[in-house]
């Protein structure tokens, strides 16, 4: 493995990527804050949550090359942790009477719930991952999908603990932007730190050349498991914050819809690039928002121009196809955003290749 000094220089050479991405997120936050519009503020909160989800997904999918359909299950685990730990005990008693007593009495702030959600999801990622990470390719993808379906069925039917398919309400709603911004930035930095760590390097080596990596002593299931647990933690924390953004959880919030939205954002952005993960969200979300404004109608002079309802979904699909036609590896491919320097060939997100 790389000697210590060299690794530090990897960190220094690549730190510009998370810094630029964080600056982009801050810019979005400032625009929302300056606009003063509460619906727009909520939209940007949604964007930050999606950044967290897609970055969480990237930590595993991007580094391991294994597509996971199951990560939203971790968001579900985290979301319900938020419900279990932040709803007022009296309301919990009515909707979820089967909770153990200590949990019933617990009432913690949102950030602690996000941490707890992350930890709970990470624990289950460890349990599931210990089995699933031995699989590779399409078998692994299908197994992660099975995990999603499993978590969803349990949460949709465990009446006394998750209130089954009913909405669990009473989660304190958090409408300020800043906690979400901080969480999204933390997720970006966590993903960056992981991808330049020796474990991240090992996993990317295993992604590109599994045989050679294994021959060099990389324990592939273990390397994958580490990524799986970290990404599970990020998804769990994101799921908890998502619950705080709308004030309720249901199992189907965290199911196929969110799975495919986050996956397509990652694919469009560029699956093996952290910048791609963040940009995929920012670009697609901005596009969705612009189309929604057009659907709602904008006034040009005296006439109102409006697209027919439902065009947003169609246009989004067309744009995604177009992006993937011209850039099959996504908008960013496997490049990262960096400061323009003299060393044009530098690929900071792929330090394995620059070493």
């Amino acid at each position, binding site marked *: 493995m790389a000697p210590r000094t060299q690794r530090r220089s990897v960190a220094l050479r690549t730190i510009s990527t998370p810094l630029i991405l964080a600056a982009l997120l801050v810019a979005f936050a400032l625009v929302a804050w300056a606009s003063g519009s*509460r619906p727009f503020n*909520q939209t940007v909160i949604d964007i930050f949550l999606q950044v967290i989800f897609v970055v969480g997904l990237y930590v595993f999918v991007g580094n391991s090359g294994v597509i996971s359909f199951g990560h939203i299950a971790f968001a579900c685990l985290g979301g319900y942790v938020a419900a279990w730990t932040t709803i007022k005990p009296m309301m919990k008693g009515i909707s979820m009477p089967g909770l153990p007593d200590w949990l019933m009495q617990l009432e913690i702030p949102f950030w602690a719930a996000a941490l707890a959600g992350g930890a709970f999801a990470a624990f289950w990622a460890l349990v599931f991952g210990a089995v699933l990470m031995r699989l590779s390719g399409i078998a692994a993808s299908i197994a992660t999908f099975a995990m999603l379906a499993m978590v969803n069925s349990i949460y949709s039917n465990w009446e006394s603990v998750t209130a089954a398919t009913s909405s669990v*309400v009473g989660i304190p709603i958090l409408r300020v932007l800043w906690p979400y911004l901080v969480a999204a930035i933390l997720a970006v930095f966590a993903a960056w730190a992981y991808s330049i760590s020796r474990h991240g390097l090992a996993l990317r080596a295993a992604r590109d050349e599994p045989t050679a990596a294994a021959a060099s002593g990389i324990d592939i299931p273990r390397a994958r498991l580490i990524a799986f647990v970290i990404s599970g933690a990020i998804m769990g924390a994101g799921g908890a914050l998502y619950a705080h*953004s709308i*004030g*309720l959880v*249901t199992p189907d*919030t965290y199911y196929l819809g969110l799975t495919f939205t986050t996956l397509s954002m990652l694919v469009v952005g560029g699956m093996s690039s952290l910048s791609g993960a963040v940009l995929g969200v920012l670009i697609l979300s901005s596009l969705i928002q612009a189309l929604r404004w057009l659907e709602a109608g904008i006034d040009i002079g005296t006439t109102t121009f409006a697209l027919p309802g439902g065009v947003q979904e169609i246009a989004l699909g067309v744009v995604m196809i177009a992006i993937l036609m011209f850039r099959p590896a996504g908008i960013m491919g496997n490049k990262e955003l960096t400061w323009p320097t003299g060393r044009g060939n530098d690929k900071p997100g792929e330090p394995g290749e620059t070493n």
Partner: protein
Amino acid sequence: MKRVIAVLAASTCLGSAAFGDDDRIVVGFATAETGFMQAYDKPAQDAAMIRIAEINEAGGLLGKQIEVVNADTKTDRAEGAKAGLSVIDAGADIVVVSCDYDFGAPAALTAESSGLISFFLCAESIKAGIQGVGPNSFSASVLAPVQGATMAQWAYEKKEARSFYRLLDTWTEYNKGICDGFDYMLPQLADATLVGEDTFLNEDASIAAQITRIKGLPEEPDAIMLCTMMPGAVSAIKQLRAAGINSMILNGSGVDGSYWLSAVPDLSNFYTPVQGSIYGDDPNAEVTAFNAKFKEATGGDPSTQYTYPGYVMIDVWAKAVERAGTTETAAVVAELEKMNAEPTLFGPRTFTSELHHQNQARYLIVETNAGKPGVVDEWTISAPIPVADLMK
């Protein structure tokens, strides 16, 4: 310079809207204009618009014309929260939210945290109100358990049904609510017995196993309480009848409408509680007049009774505003809570500080005979269902 003025004008507009200008009365609809909930929200919203137009024609509310703002929830919970914020920022005094509790709750919670009244268009869960949103939230429809209780008591009293079979589709809260009401009523009916019960899932293609158990009973039950909803209801009903089970089938309001009857030709002995009749035979001529008005406004007859709660909603809210002399939330809520058997086009409505929903209501009973639905009776359960029983 012109642009500066325009920007200034626009910002004052926004500013005043955000602070809920007292010169305007605004109804904000944070409902689904797209997605599957649209099928439920749109008719009720159209009915609400008819009532708003009537009030405006008659001189408005507190001397002001009611204005309307809309935001689409896209049948999505996260979008619902945004839609709620949109209409509140546009100056809404009341936030009207989706029919279903799960989909309406995010917008209703937004209204609640902004200190505004929220009204579910036609949610029938007790959670759509104080219990699941907060003290300023109401529902315009009637609780699902009232439907189950109404059918059980009516069948017992008027059809002399004594043996009941309970068949529950566990898909939604609404379905469970109907059966909860039935469970509450049945023990109160002397010598009525539950001869069996079973569950299925809305998406089940076949309920053959459940049917076998009904057929296995020593005697066909007098009535089957079928707690289900569309789309699975049609298949379940069809299978029951195809298996030669001719017991009367009691339902919730969710199966109202004639649009699906062609799928079960010559259906008979089939009973549904409705708040008003879409079949042109409502005992109240004004309902029929409303149907005509609805057809004029939208180009079609109401397709189910879930159109009507939208009208009731604006009706009771406007009355409360008129009595309070303001649109201020606390005053209007207080006036709404004073309503005791307040007459509306679709039966009396009562709100209390404990329950912002109907735990007793007059229902018309629609019988489908040889494939033709029509009103045959009306029934009000003898006593309101206690809130404690509703909270189970």
